């Protein structure tokens, strides 16, 4: 068999959906290795502890039952997003540091398929977090009778925020020259985005404050959870809070894919 100037024995892969192969492998790596399970374990412990506190406070009337559900839902969204962000922020810079990126880049896989595959694999972290959070939310939301709203907020709002932040982590990972920088930058951005929702002064600062909350995908998502679960506002009134999470999810995914063309090893010379 001659592999000389004849066409390679392996057929051309241009246009083939190689992102599926990458997603499968990355997902398997995430969950076979200890990384995915460790992050999920941390998420589970933190959520369980916070849910216990919220339920306890609700039981002794320190916290309204609806508020306790909102706390658990918002925590699930925040921590689940953080978990997915940590995974995606490691996806490319981690490979670069472990020396496995070059072998991947010299395959005929289109670069954007590499990014899409890794993005989908990182999203499984959010899905796993969701599955852990779901029973807790179901139990807690049953009392005040907000099961449907709580689950919907978790899936819709949480899904959008997680998608946006997972894409952000991947975008940062593809340009960061070290894994540590990628993780630090991604988590810092998440904390900065989440900060406004923790500041009562901003909430109370009128139209500008409300605009800032709505413009920030994380604070908008968390505010929407509060509005629906605690203030019992109608879903139809909440669409302004969905704009920034939707825009961020789409835009950051597009940015991550656009940056795929610039994937580099980082030590070129």
């Amino acid at each position: 068999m001659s592999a000389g100037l004849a066409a390679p024995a392996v057929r051309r892969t241009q246009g083939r959906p190689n992102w599926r192969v990458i997603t499968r492998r990355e997902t398997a790596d995430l969950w076979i290795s200890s990384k995915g399970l460790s992050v999920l374990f941390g998420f589970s412990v933190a959520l369980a502890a916070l849910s216990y506190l919220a339920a306890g406070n609700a039981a002794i009337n320190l916290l309204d039952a609806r508020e306790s559900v909102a706390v658990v839902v918002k925590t699930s969204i925040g921590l689940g997003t953080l978990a997915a962000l940590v995974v995606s922020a490691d996806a490319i810079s981690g490979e670069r540091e472990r020396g496995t990126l070059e072998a991947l880049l010299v395959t005929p896989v289109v670069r954007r398929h590499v990014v899409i595959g890794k993005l989908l694999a990182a999203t499984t972290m959010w899905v796993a977090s969701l599955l852990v959070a779901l029973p807790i939310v179901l139990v807690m939301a049953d009392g005040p009778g907000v099961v449907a709203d709580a689950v919907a907020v978790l899936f819709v709002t949480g899904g959008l925020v997680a998608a946006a932040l997972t894409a952000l982590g991947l975008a940062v990972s593809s340009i960061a020259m070290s894994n540590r920088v990628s993780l630090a930058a991604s988590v810092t951005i998440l904390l900065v985005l989440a900060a406004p929702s923790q500041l009562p002064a901003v909430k109370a600062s009128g139209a500008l404050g409300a605009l800032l909350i709505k413009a920030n995908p994380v604070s908008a998502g968390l505010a929407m959870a509060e509005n629906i679960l605690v203030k019992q506002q109608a879903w139809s009134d909440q669409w302004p809070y969905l704009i920034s999470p939707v825009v961020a999810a789409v835009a950051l995914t597009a940015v991550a894919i656009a940056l795929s063309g610039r994937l580099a090893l980082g030590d070129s010379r």
Partner: protein
Amino acid sequence: MVPTGVSDPALEARDLTVRYGKFTAADSVSVTANSGEILGLLGPNGAGKTSVIRALTTIVPVSAGTARINGHDLSDPTAVRASIGVLPESNGYPGAQTARSYLRFYGELFGLSPREAGIRADRQLGEVGLGDNHNRISTFSRGMRQRLGLARALINDPAVLFLDEPTLGLDPAGQDELLAQLAHNAIENGTCIVLCSHLLDEVERVCDRVAIMHNARIVADGNVDEVITTSGVAASCKLRFALGDVVAAETVLRASVASLRFDETRPGGIEIELATGNGARTDILRLLLDKGIEPRSFDLQGARLSDAFRALTGTGRESTQ
């Protein structure tokens, strides 16, 4: 782009230049290699070898010049990547996977179905002596990882195989085994192999041609003899004769060689400087034997690739070890 014809070289680079900002890592590098040929790409650290390989494997953009791999221009990177196999110097491995699942993954990336990729993975693992190993890669020794890396680089039956220090960390037996496998691949499969190595003895042994880089440029290119000739390094021989033959040997040698001196520390020892080229030593031996003078020892000094390398790059012996 479609491969053009059998007369085309498997690898052809013309005036290839790679720049990182203002730094020029490879400057107007022109190199050619045919199918079934093993090309040694040599040079001291920082000479630009890795940059040339990364440009030819579409990892870094080319600043100027052109290159074709298996008939595909670098402007069609997907086609180029489908035609090449690469074993980088600092290749990492996913420790949690088994060798088979690792190779299967790469087989699928090259367009094989999962079943075909599994069959190909088994074949490649068998060829590198890892066929019976079902452990995780994290348990593999350095040598096993190198062999796995080679199997991965060959998973697509590449037309051009780029190897950056493939024998690094291998014991002498492992080095011999790997080099024999490379030679087999070049001969049997017609694979063009580009081998970067600091081990000049192994390069001299397996490479059909060598190109030496220094300060981002190719300073010599050709087969080993041609490169030695280009370097202008003269070979020398240390001969030792029976004391009764020394005078006759001196007479024969003085008529044939440029310089001759006696080794004061070894009675019967004579050191001579040979003309460039490997034929010179056989000529000397023939002359002596024709006169009935049989040297007790014949020790060729210099005119090796390593000497040419040092002469062309101005590096010390330690840099080639």
